[in-house]
């Protein structure tokens, strides 16, 4: 079967066709498109971006991302884990907030710095 999809790797958004049996891809501008197409029909993954609650910071939330794409089917479970965390400011950009999320080997990392509030 041929599946139509849009590659999400970059803003080009190539419209690609994936043969689900032969695992071949056409319409991709670059090799990442091919990898994406195959991954989508075998084991789709997504980069997760979200926020984590901060205590004592100048803002209430620190933005985070998954260090690698994680399986699409784990996204909401991942959100549950992320939602449990309360992290104390200051938080440096790049800090690993959750290590090895749901045993995937993927970390959740802070993508901005949140300074502590001066009281």
């Amino acid at each position, binding site marked *: 079967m041929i599946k139509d*999809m*849009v*590659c*999400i*790797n*970059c*803003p080009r*958004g190539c*419209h690609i066709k994936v043969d689900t049996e032969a695992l071949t891809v056409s319409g991709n501008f670059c090799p990442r498109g091919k990898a994406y197409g195959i991954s989508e029909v075998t084991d789709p993954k*997504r*980069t*997760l*971006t*979200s*926020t984590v*609650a901060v205590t004592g910071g*100048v*803002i*209430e*939330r620190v*933005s*985070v*991302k998954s260090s690698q794409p994680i399986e*699409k089917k784990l*996204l*909401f479970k991942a*959100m549950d884990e992320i939602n449990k965390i309360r992290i104390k400011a200051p938080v440096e*950009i790049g800090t690993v907030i959750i290590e090895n999320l749901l045993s995937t080997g993927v970390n959740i990392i802070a*993508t*901005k*710095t949140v300074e502590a509030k001066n009281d």
Partner: protein
Amino acid sequence: MNTNRDLIIIGGGPAGLAAAYGAFQEGLRDILIIERDDTLGGILNQCIHNGFGLHRFNEELTGPEYANRYEEMVKSTSVEIMSNTMAINLTDDKEVTVISSEGGLQVLKAKAIILAMGCRERPRGAISTPGDRCAGIFTAGAAQKYCNIDGYLVGKRIVILGSGDIGLIMARRMTLEGAKVLADVELCPYSNGLARNIAQCLDDYDIPLYPSYTVTDIVSDKDHQRIQKVVISKVDEHKKPIPGTEISFDCDTLLLSVGLIPENELSGKAGIELDCRTRGPIVFDNLETDKEGVFACGNVLQVHDLVDNVSAEGERAGHNAAKYIQNGEPISKIVKVCPGPGIGYVCPQFIRVDTMEDSVNVFFRVNLPENNVTLVLSGNDGKLASVKKIRVAPSEMESLKIKKEYLNNCSEITVSLEENHND
């Protein structure tokens, strides 16, 4: 504090940061950024999703990470930042009035100014959506701020009007935070967002897109005046609602993602001429406005899709502002750049032929999505260059290279769209 500066940049978001860096690279040292917020980075601070930086840094970054890259670059320079400071007036004489809690009111003068104020979201009134006026109606950006910075959920059952990127991104964001997004409603027959965003924001979460629909009524709960229902209707080819096609959604929130407008209040105060199509300043190839020594870049000049392009434009504005301070106003024959058939606007609108770089990129958007077309550059004597495209859309900014030699016998150059005939 010294109130006579070489370069003042109004706005410390991606455009302003890039402009500061660009000016510094060109050798300028006295550079001041005026930023109204506490931190630099502008709107990127709340754009926590990824998709930024693939061109500029060859990496996929989130908004805050992209902003951080430029902040680090600027931190390593002598650029001065005045944060929590708002520019409240600009004269055509390059005088900027700023206010802040710490500094009071100050009038600063500069040899050159770069406008980098970004843009604002169109409100409900811009499209005259009828119905009740009640709590629970937000622009997508405001909902994004509540969610990503302040940590509030604006609603649990959400209808989104507009399928541009901001609407699509918020559809995903609210879903991941536990809300139910009932529909994304789009006036045009096609979404105006990037195809990748439709895939990863709507399709991934089975959020239905309603193309050729619009919101035709908003109903609030009478006692508390919070939204409780949204009615959408199909529209005809003139974008007018078709009676009898109504679909209701019981919801508690309506998010509006119905367009961005460059924020040119200050530019207006300085009497800078604006292009009615871009709603940003009219500029020369060096990004200078019609006021000498005042430059513009980023979303205040033209609404961009990719922050990478904003940075490139910002760095160019910075270089050119520095060059202007060093060498003075360029003197040259001027060629006008015009949008032709199929093209919504062009930027820059004028080119100084004698002082331009070897080539100038003209940026533009097409009016309608089309397949198999040719983008054409023509001068007074006919076609100068053309590029075939498989697909173009209003949501994706395009560019063409205008080479210096094209402009030898030209007073006007036009960008237009032609359909491909099967040769």
